């Protein structure tokens, strides 16, 4: 092989690897990402049952029902609207009524959010950013009043 051929081989190899990486990324970005929504968004514009979404808001006070075999029913609210949600499993330690929550899953045909992952804040001073945004959008977040709205015991 001449020098030129060797260089060409190297460059084409790099080209192939780069092109496949870009291709994979573009493909995955159209398919492998999850959009963030708030309960108002979901009610106004319901995502298809196949689409994974990330739902953020506060756990509505008085909505949490823990049934046998780990089924948890609760409602997520952004102050304006609220959405029924179900989750099977152990909810995080800081999952409490009136506290911020981020749930990932799909909205089923009945408009119930079937969560496969539930995240709550992990310490007392932290509110998931997505929840803050959802509350801001619905006008329930008034930083000038001080703390975030806390519908229940903090």
């Amino acid at each position: 092989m001449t020098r030129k051929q060797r260089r060409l081989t190297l460059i084409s190899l790099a080209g192939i690897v780069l092109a496949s990486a870009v291709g994979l990324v573009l493909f995955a970005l159209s398919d492998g990402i999850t959009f963030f929504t708030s309960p108002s968004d979901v009610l106004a514009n319901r995502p298809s049952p196949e689409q994974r979404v990330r739902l953020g808001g506060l756990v509505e006070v008085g909505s949490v029902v823990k049934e046998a075999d780990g089924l948890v029913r609760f409602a997520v609210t952004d102050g304006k609207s609220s959405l029924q949600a179900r989750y099977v499993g152990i909810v995080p330690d800081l999952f409490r009524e009136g506290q911020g929550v981020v749930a990932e899953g799909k909205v089923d045909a009945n408009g119930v959010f079937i969560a496969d992952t539930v995240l709550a804040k992990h310490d007392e001073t932290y509110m998931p950013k997505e929840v803050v945004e959802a509350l801001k959008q619905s006008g329930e977040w008034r930083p000038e009043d001080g703390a975030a709205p806390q519908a229940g015991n903090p």
Partner: protein
Amino acid sequence: MIVELGHYALVLALILALAGGTLPFWGALRGDERLMTIASTTSIAQFVFVAMSFGALTYAYVVSDFSVQNVVENSHTLKPLLYKISGVWGNHEGSMLLWALILVLFGGLVALFSDNLPLKLKALVLAVQSWISAAFLLFILVASNPFLRLNPAPFQGRDLNPVLQDVGLAIHPPLLYLGYVGCSISFAFAIAALIDGRIDAAWARWVRPWTLAAWCFLTLGIAMGSYWAYYELGWGGWWFWDPVENASFMPWLAATALLHSAIVMEKREALKIWTILLAILTFSLSLLGTFLVRSGVLTSVHAFATDPTRGIFILCILCVFIGGAFSLFAARAGTLSQGGLFAPISREGALVLNNLLLTAACATVLVGTLYPLALEAITGEKISVGAPFFDMTFGPMMVPLLIAVPFGPMLAWKRGDIVAAGQRLLFAFGAAMAVMIVGLALMGTPSALALFGVALAVWLMVGALSEIAFRIKLGRASLAESWRRGAGLPRSAWGTMVAHFGVGVTVLGVIGATAWQSETIASLKPGQSMTIDGRTLTMDGFVPISGGTFTGTGVRFSVREGGNLVAVLEPEKRIYTVQNMPTTESAIKTFGFSQLYVSVGDIAADGSTVVRVYWKTLVALIWLGSLIMTAGGVLSLSDRRLRVGAPKPARRSLAIPAE
């Protein structure tokens, strides 16, 4: 008083860093030896003063000095001593101080143990290192000072975030930082080489042990973090593709590439500019990681406090160092002597392929990590990029790399023989195929993808062993002869074998834990049972527990297999009384390399408790494989040629036979 001394020591360290960054640099440019020799002194002194400062903060924690705001916010008198100490870096300010301590530690080590470095290169390396420490010390003093006093001092502290009250906090951050920040040395070497305008095989030989050491720590740190998240968070997950995890994984991928490209540079004087670029890239990714984790742009367990000024400060440091380094690279790379070209099928060629795939994989992780931030900044749309994205991008990039790994060490330098390499790997290929075929016969086509993964792991492990078997002529010569050859092999060859074997072990663990885990959720009352994977768990009852700053309840389970008691597990629900925060402690029992993982939900008034049980097939191999990889790195680090300072190392390495 001690706290003030600590604060003062930090200021002195900053002044020393400024002096160490300018005087030797000036000396190197003017060829003034006296100024250049200052670098070692200032670097060692920086370490001494930052260590004093760190010691002062640790002292404040140990004696619970609640006149220090940082201690009040993160400590408590009842906290066990271990958590008082590890709590020093369990918060933003303290963790930055640890960052700085490790940075100056590496500077000090270079100053002490690099007597064989040319004076000018050493002065430049230490000067660059001093710039970085000056920037971070300034950041600590201005924007996140851990020594701020509080008046009046409260009687009690607010305790450390309970999630962090774990032995993991004592191990994971120091290891990770040793890796993360250790990459600064290869960065400093790269910048020094660019300024100096000279770069050769000797440069690669000086850089490699530092990179290797940092890589070993990074591997351990990431593995430890993964295991900690696995047992602490109670979800049974060992990797979440969380941006914070990616922040440490990207430098690891880049450092792995750098390790391999530095070999080419050392042995063949090729890939010089690429190696320099990788060294810059690796530390840039470390800085990016620090920014992502510490600035509060991401919310995670790692983001302690969100203070915008800190984010902007770190962003400035990031821009200055990354921007400066790349500008310097753009300006000077052309003036460096080009390395030679080589045949595509050769050891060099294989290492180039390794580098291409690793950097491309690193780029996909970078895109997945930054895309949500960029999209939100530009369009305001919020998305989350999680496991599906990385499975689709990172996974496919890794497959060709892993297939290629056993070929690499089998190929000769300059011009390799792929057919001969293939023949030597026939046994490994056969073993992989056999596993695949037997697996398909037993489990059927639904498991085909997982079985392919297992076959890949077998290919990697047997391939690594085949390489050594070939080199010591196992089976083709007498055992005594093989033994003699094995003892004569350089340790770096053994290191390669061990590390590549470890990759196979980790892959096997990842596949096993992903494809064959099972999970059951049930609500149990004492006396009731559930089964998972042939084992029966019976809830025996509740045990009150208490310790440190928590009280709680342990839920005792006995695990039976065919009627025999094989384990007693006791997951806990704890309440940390100071912050009134509940936590869940899972309980794990290892069977072989697989694990039974139990965590419990809230205990209802009638004693019924939601119990989540996982059977994690081969999961322990994930971390065991990381340990083996690290052992390979350590073995390679102990190689004679890295320990013994060779006076003219540039050409001598060619005497080492390629096989």
